[in-house]
């Protein structure tokens, strides 16, 4: 088995605030293989955006990586110098963000921004016309019409969908191996979203670019991803291939999440919302963070935090599957049968 492109192992991230230290990410583990599309899904505040920023080591100044490793192409990112890190950003790993209006500098033309993005990784200074032509080509490839003229426009002169395409164009300039899409379609309407997702799938198919798709939208994840990581309160509670997760979710949270998605079949019935609220990061309960909202929790769930367990090709963080517990203490659920190995 070849080495995965990205390995996240036990990642711990905290934020230092006036009110205390917030544990934004705890013991997060997953991998992304070359050419794979992996989704990270969860509610707001579960830490998915922190994950994206942490991978490129671009956390806010009050954020700090306090544990774990992030390995990209075999190298531990913590061991990279500032210069090597900068080289990695944009070339090895590129990122696109949620709101394309705020991701582009409003006072510069998109041409200037793209030229800067190119020059950032050039050893020798290429001629202006070469760089400009490459910019035009990049824009045309993502579907911006009349690129040669529009290269001199400012971001606000484009529609939301086109701005996101521009962001993608910039991200692809140096043919990165991994593209991190942080809520890339959340600010777009449904039709635009479909177009962008189609574009992303194309990029993955044509260039073999791996994609880490971060979203709160289950539909988006289901459509595009091969593997999924489900996050809750800063922890990865389940990880597996997209079919297993969606057909036979193992973790009570994943199950509840999927059940909460309204569908025409449930017409006339009560909306299956998950009772309770996500715990505040300042006042996390001991034990499993989902215990107070879980319908299947046993006493142990409130006192100890479950470890991340392997089940075939899947990982799940729940005592339902912890065989080391005596049967009397173990939580029980009739649907929690052993999953078929992937």
């Amino acid at each position, binding site marked *: 088995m070849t080495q995965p492109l990205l390995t996240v192992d036990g990642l711990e991230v905290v*934020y*230092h*605030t*006036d*009110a205390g230290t*917030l544990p*934004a990410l705890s013991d997060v583990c997953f991998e992304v293989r070359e050419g794979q599309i992996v989704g990270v899904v969860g509610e707001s*505040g579960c*830490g998915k*955006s*922190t994950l*994206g*920023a*942490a991978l490129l080591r*671009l*956390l*806010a*100044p*009050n*954020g*700090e990586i306090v544990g774990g490793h992030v390995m990209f192409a075999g190298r531990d990112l913590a061991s990279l110098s500032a210069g090597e890190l900068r080289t990695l950003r944009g070339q090895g790993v590129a990122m696109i963000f949620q709101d394309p209006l705020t991701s582009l500098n409003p006072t510069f033309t998109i041409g200037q921004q793209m030229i800067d993005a190119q020059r950032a990784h050039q050893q020798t200074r290429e001629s202006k016309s070469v760089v400009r032509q490459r910019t035009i080509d990049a824009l045309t490839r993502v579907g911006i019409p009349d690129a040669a003229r529009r290269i001199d426009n400012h971001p606000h002169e484009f529609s939301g969908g086109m701005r996101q395409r521009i962001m993608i164009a910039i991200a692809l300039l140096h043919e990165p191996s991994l593209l991190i899409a942080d809520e890339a379609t959340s600010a777009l309407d449904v039709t635009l979203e479909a177009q962008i997702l189609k574009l992303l799938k194309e990029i993955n198919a044509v260039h073999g670019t791996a994609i880490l798709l971060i979203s709160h939208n289950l539909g988006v994840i289901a459509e595009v991803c091969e593997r999924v990581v489900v996050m809750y309160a800063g922890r990865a509670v389940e990880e597996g291939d997209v079919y297993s997760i969606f057909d036979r979710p193992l973790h009570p949270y994943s199950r509840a999440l999927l059940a909460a998605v309204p569908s025409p079949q449930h017409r006339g019935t009560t909306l299956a919302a998950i009772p309770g609220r996500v715990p505040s*990061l*300042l006042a996390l309960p001991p034990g499993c963070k989902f215990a107070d909202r879980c319908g299947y929790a046993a006493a142990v769930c409130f006192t100890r935090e479950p470890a991340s367990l392997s089940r075939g090709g899947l990982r799940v963080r729940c005592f339902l599957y912890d065989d080391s517990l005596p049967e009397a203490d173990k939580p029980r659920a009739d649907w929690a049968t052993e999953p078929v190995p992937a």
Partner: protein
Amino acid sequence: MAVASQGGEAAVVRAPAGGGVMTRLGRLIREVARRPAGLFGLLVVCLLFVVVVAAPVVAPYGPYDQSIVERLQGPSLKHLLGTDELGRDLLSRVIFGARIALGVAIPAVLIAMFVGMLTGLISGYVGRSVDQVAIVGMDAIQAFPAVILALALLAVLGPSLRNVVIVIGVALAPGYARVVRAMTRAAKQNQYVEAEVSLGAGTTRIAVHHLLPNIAAPLFILTAMDIPSAIAIEAGLAFLGLGVPPPSPSWGALLSDGFRYVLISPWAIIAASAALMLTTLGFAMLGETLRDVLDPKLSGTRRWRKR
């Protein structure tokens, strides 16, 4: 070079709201005192008030006690800050000068607040031509640097305590007017207000219920920053000879006297400058801290760790 940029969720947690006015005030003061800048500001302001109220007790001499024999001396055990050209103890003059500084600044700021708020409320609420006229007025007043406006008015009216207070009040009023006007206009369009109006709520209730709580914070901050401005303007006017008339120990007058004798003794200038700077610094720090506490967005970063 470390560059600050926002990665994702950096949670800002606010202190719990609610409680009566006094408890909220108490909480505010505690929040302010937690920060070193705020603590410094609070201490300075308290010191100032003590000095002003207890001036005759705190000052070693009277502000007008002359002693020609001891004129223009440097600091000594007898005169901690030295003496001026008439042998008056500088420390005492500085202490009594605080009375003039606050005695001018506080009424002036109060006038500015009152006039400004009234104008802002009416202008913001009534709108249209009244509003346009008010804006032209505010712009016109603010078109003059405060000192120049004060000079022009005092040149014709003649310098006196009353005139100085009024003139500074006029110069500072547009600041309050603008803030209140902006708030009033925003509140007018607020849907809560629309709802209440449709239910028959009177203008007073709307003003008290919706306006005042929103206004309190910016007004506090503005006042904290305006008091040192007023003090500085008064001292400046006194320096130019247009402040409260001599022999009043206004800090500006001390500066002006010191200026005349600068080649012989720098102590008057040093004493008055120190007093002015300490006071304005204290209020400014208080204002900054208030702004940090009441509106963290404006403060930038807080307690960052190195990457």
